[in-house]
């Protein structure tokens, strides 16, 4: 469990990125921080592994104040995946994945063997192990990034817009892959994105952020979609328009769903199971 208690962050230039932020992030679940730029979401994420230290307030992981932990050691125990993979260009794929285990003193041979197994886990061909990052596609690089994040089998995995830079088709593929991985591994995932669809797809708990890290709403995707807390949330998730605002029309005796732009969204086939309502895609 990760707990933010009245956390604030003011950068040296005076910008108040996060103001009095409190949040509990449950273990073994995916929590998605979603917001537009300036919402402080990345700053919040980077506070968890002390890439950024708060100017006020505390952050606890399983009851331990992380300010009392040595940053380098803390980071080695937390997986981190970032937007442009951040792989080391001069190291082969397998060595990139083995980076943190090697830092932690795992023998080279073991680390490499584990890294190869990790490539399987994230759905990468072992044949790519001896390539350099620049020889991989964007999607493959991101998978390597995920493999590196998971290499030390951390309890916590931080993901900073990890699929933001790949094309939509690959992104959808990677999102499904993450859903699968998470169902197998059950990590405490903290995921940052500006894409509401992505947040609703991946998040068990979704945190919608306004400017300065103010929480507009917390809840499951269903909760949020069914009961947007205010106009900001409703407009942010697009509940009042487009493909989320569906209504039923009858055509030749069948009920079809039409969105607010009049585009056909699907057919109504009966009562959906609870929990699956809401997000047509």
């Amino acid at each position, binding site marked *: 469990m990760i707990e933010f208690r009245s956390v604030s962050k003011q950068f040296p230039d005076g910008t108040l990125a996060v103001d009095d932020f409190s949040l509990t992030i449950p273990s073994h679940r995916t929590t998605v921080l979603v917001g537009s730029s300036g919402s402080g979401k990345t700053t919040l994420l980077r506070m968890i592994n002390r890439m950024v230290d708060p100017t006020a307030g505390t952050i606890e992981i399983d009851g331990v104040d992380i300010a009392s932990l040595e940053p380098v*050691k*803390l980071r080695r125990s937390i997986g981190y995946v*970032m937007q*442009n993979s*951040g*792989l*080391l260009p*001069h*190291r082969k794929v397998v060595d990139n994945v083995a980076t943190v285990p090697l830092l932690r003193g795992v023998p080279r041979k073991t680390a490499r063997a584990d890294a190869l197994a990790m490539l399987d886990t994230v759905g990468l061909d072992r044949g790519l192990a001896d390539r350099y990052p620049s020889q991989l596609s964007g999607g493959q690089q991101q998978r390597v990034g995920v493999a590196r994040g998971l290499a030390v089998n951390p309890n916590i995995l*931080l993901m900073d817009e990890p699929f933001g830079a790949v094309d939509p088709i690959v992104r959808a593929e990677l999102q499904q892959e993450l859903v699968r991985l998470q169902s197998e591994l059950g990590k405490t995932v903290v995921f940052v994105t500006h894409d509401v669809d992505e947040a609703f797809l991946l998040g068990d708990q979704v945190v919608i952020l306004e400017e300065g890290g103010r929480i507009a709403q917390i809840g499951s995707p269903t909760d949020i979609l069914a009961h947007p807390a205010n106009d900001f949330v409703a407009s942010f998730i697009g509940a009042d328009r487009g493909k989320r605002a569906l209504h039923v029309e009858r055509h030749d005796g069948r009920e079809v769903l039409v969105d607010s732009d009049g585009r056909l969204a699907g057919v109504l086939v009966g009562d959906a199971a609870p929990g699956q309502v809401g997000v047509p895609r």
Partner: protein
Amino acid sequence: MNIFGDALNWIIDPANYSGPGAIPMRLLEHLGFTFLTLLVASAIAIPFGFVIGHTGRGRGLAVTTSGGLRAIPTLGLLTLVALWIGIGLGAPYVALTVLAIPPILAGAYTGFEAIDRGAIDAARAVGMSEVQILTQVEIPLGLPLLIGGLRSAALQVVATATLAAYVADFGLGRYLFSGLKTRDYAQMLGGSILVILLALALEGIFATIQRVVVPRGVASTRLLVDRARPARPRPGMEPAITKGNP
């Protein structure tokens, strides 16, 4: 082309290969001087350059100082120092070390700046200590530009060492000055050819080293490394110019 024939004759004349002031000895003096100067300049410039590149601090100061040092005419500095500390090798050593520092310093920190910020940020985020980031990420990735800086410095030192013969009795430059004095054009030209060959040989060696030290995974983005566009975004940035062959 009779003049060149004379110069070549001078170069291969066995008389110039024995006794004091023999060609091999002058060549060794020249090379040894260059090597030692580079060594001392590197010992001063590289640590500073690494600190500037790693922390991003002190860059403005380094640029200004280097710029100022570069604007100073080498011959002026050489003769001035020679007046201060007397004729001999001391003055050239001091003057040339000072002149060799800016390119090495710039090579060291621009090498770091050219590295993708994301890679360094990620290295820190996964738990590399600052020393590990330096040794495992920044130095290997910044090495090609550092070698580029050493290459510039080496050429500058070899060239100025020729002039240093004006204030000290050493190196290949002696042939040029004594030829000038006695109007012995064959000796002057022969000496010049030797200096030029030495400079080109060093240029070739450094160009090769520079190519070899490019980490293999980066080789496909060689052009970028060559032109050293810093990854750290800066307003008004123009493509940088670096010396050397493509």
